């Protein structure tokens, strides 16, 4: 009742954005925000790596130039939190909210992933994660059913290789720093974990199995040169009809469907289950307030607006998977989803992600980005047959233990 959107009228908030579809969708409504609050929103948009580079510089210089920035808690959350770059949003998210905001309506998993040492550091903007794309027509031709387990995927790959030699049976990420994103999903499905009793756990049976399976799929059924594959190549390969199965981010749907060639013959699933069932990787972009901001409240207003149900619904209609189950059930959104069969499958997969997801991509330590290197290294060594599984996991564990010790 006493919440006043106009409280910071006349102020200017600077927003360091990652120029990705999430931000693009959000910023379509920039004028709405300015009208609503009477504030000015200054947007500084960069591509992801550049944004991070700028952010690091600005934060290291203790500059108040940035009030609000986008962040991937699953990746840099620990690190930024440790460095004290995030303003603590816990209190504001409780007290300084408009009645319709409904913080509890946000994905709890994502909120948890953005909470470090009890401090809420960012609000989720979207939900995403790697999902399984497959070609229904090829599966039909080769007499296959949609895979339910990781074993099924291997079998399918084998069959497809025999039945349609022109296509690559399976593709996923092979580029060193990118591997962790998809690999984590497989590891968790199989039932492995990164850390057990404070030690790196890749050489556990499950860990080795995950490493072996992931690399074998790519080595035996993946495209040549898969060690350089990341989302660009995977999408391109799949889109051009030259891959039967792809394990890639849910975000890539739009890219994959471009041109319309894959619209009718693509099936989407969460990555098939392992011994531990479905433990999909679920992450999301967060929006955070800089600890150096001179106007954290005003900044929070923007954060609040950006993650409000109303705005997230508008964004969802542009294909940004909403981190709010309520929005996902909104009739208008459902209508949009029902327009295309793939969207339905896509949303279904995302629903699984939202409920069962883990945001653990790489090691849950401050040096998370660096830990991803070693995971990637191990997988690459296996793809390139440069090491045995035992060697690869041992080497990785050794390096990762050192990293963990630094924590």
């Amino acid at each position, binding site marked *: 009742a006493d919440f006043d959107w106009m409280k910071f009228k006349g102020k200017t908030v600077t927003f360091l954005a990652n120029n990705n*579809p999430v931000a693009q969708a959000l910023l379509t409504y920039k004028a709405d925000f300015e009208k609503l609050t009477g504030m000015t929103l200054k947007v500084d*948009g960069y591509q992801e790596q550049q944004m991070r*580079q700028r952010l690091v510089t600005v934060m290291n210089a203790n500059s108040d130039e940035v009030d609000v920035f986008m962040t991937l808690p699953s990746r840099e959350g620990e690190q930024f939190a440790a460095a004290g770059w995030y303003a603590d949003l816990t209190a504001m998210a409780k007290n300084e909210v408009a009645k319709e905001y409904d913080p509890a309506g946000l994905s709890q998993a994502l909120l948890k992933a953005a909470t470090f040492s009890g401090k809420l550091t960012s609000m989720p903007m979207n939900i995403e994660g790697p999902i399984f794309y497959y070609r229904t027509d090829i599966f039909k031709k080769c007499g296959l059913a949609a895979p339910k387990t990781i074993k099924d995927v291997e079998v399918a790959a084998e069959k497809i290789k025999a039945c349609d030699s022109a296509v690559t049976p399976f593709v996923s990420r092979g580029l060193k720093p990118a591997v962790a994103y998809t690999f984590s999903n497989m590891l968790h499905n199989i039932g492995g974990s990164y850390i057990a009793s404070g030690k790196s756990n890749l050489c556990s049976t499950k860990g080795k199995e995950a490493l072996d399976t992931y690399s074998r799929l790519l080595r035996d059924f993946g495209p040549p040169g898969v060690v350089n594959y990341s989302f660009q190549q995977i999408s391109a390969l799949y889109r051009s009809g030259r891959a039967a199965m792809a394990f890639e981010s849910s975000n890539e749907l739009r890219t994959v469907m471009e*041109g319309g060639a894959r619209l009718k013959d693509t099936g989407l699933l969460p990555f098939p289950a392992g011994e531990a069932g479905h433990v999909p990787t679920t992450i999301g972009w967060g929006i955070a307030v800089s600890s150096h901001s001179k106007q954290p409240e005003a900044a929070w207003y923007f954060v609040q607006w950006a993650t409000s149900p109303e705005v997230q619904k508008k964004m969802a209609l542009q294909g940004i998977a909403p981190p709010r189950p309520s929005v996902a059930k909104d009739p208008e959104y459902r209508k949009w989803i029902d327009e295309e069969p793939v969207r339905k499958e896509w949303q279904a997969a995302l629903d699984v992600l939202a409920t069962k997801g883990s945001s653990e991509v790489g090691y849950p330590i401050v040096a998370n980005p660096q830990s991803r290197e070693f995971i990637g290294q191990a997988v690459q060594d296996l793809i390139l047959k440069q090491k045995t599984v035992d060697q690869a996991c041992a080497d990785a564990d050794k390096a990762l233990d050192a990293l963990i010790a630094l924590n």
Partner: protein
Amino acid sequence: MTDAATTDHWIRRLNLVQLVLAGVLIMAPTVWMVLSSFKPSFEVTAYPPTLIFTPTLDNYVELTKTTPFLSYALNSLIVTVGSTALGLLFGIPAAFAVSWTRISWPAILTLAARMAPGTLFLLPWYVMFRQVGMIGSYTALILSHAVITLPIVIWVLLPSFDGIPRSVFEAAQVDGCSVTRILWRIALPLVASGVAVSAILAFVFSWNYFLFALVLSNGDTKTLIAAAFNFIGEGSTQWGALMAAATLIALPPLVLAALVQRWLVSGLTLGAVKG
């Protein structure tokens, strides 16, 4: 007659073959880029590569729609022209002095900034320019880019200045020229081709450099090249727009190079001196 004519003919033909060979090797990717900019985004990475397609301007339309392309271009132009001019202004006299005195440390010093990885400068410069309140100003960008253009100008001009016969300078001295005059009236016109080359290079380097702009610019002074990155990203790689942006970005340096071409075809020292 036939003998001579045929040798000549063969030499010319050999040159032509080399020219075509070089042209194909060099330009094929560029052509690919330009063609791609007229393809629908998904077709850029199609396999087999499509050669025949319906050209579309969508990418360019997209470009102007999603990014304030023109204002970025203007920013780039201001920064590039400014830093190229600054590089020439400081670099020409310095190159001349180094060539004349054969004391080369100033030339090496100016190169020092190019020896260090650019990332090394990001934080200190950010701190430095923030101190004087110049973050986001064209001045800061021009100054930082001049660090790139200056050594190029100096080093490209050095051999050109070295190639001028000393006695021409001496004649000018005897005529009563101060050192500065010798530089502007005698030496500079003689190294026109060197100046043209250094100007092209300085321009291109400054135009294509994004690292410094990354931290020293703000939303209003962002340069074009930084915008090109915006088409790369998970869920958002827009090949068509990227190629269109690249095509447009490559255009100004290309036009500049074509414009200063005529300075490249000189050969002025002929007939100045004996020896």
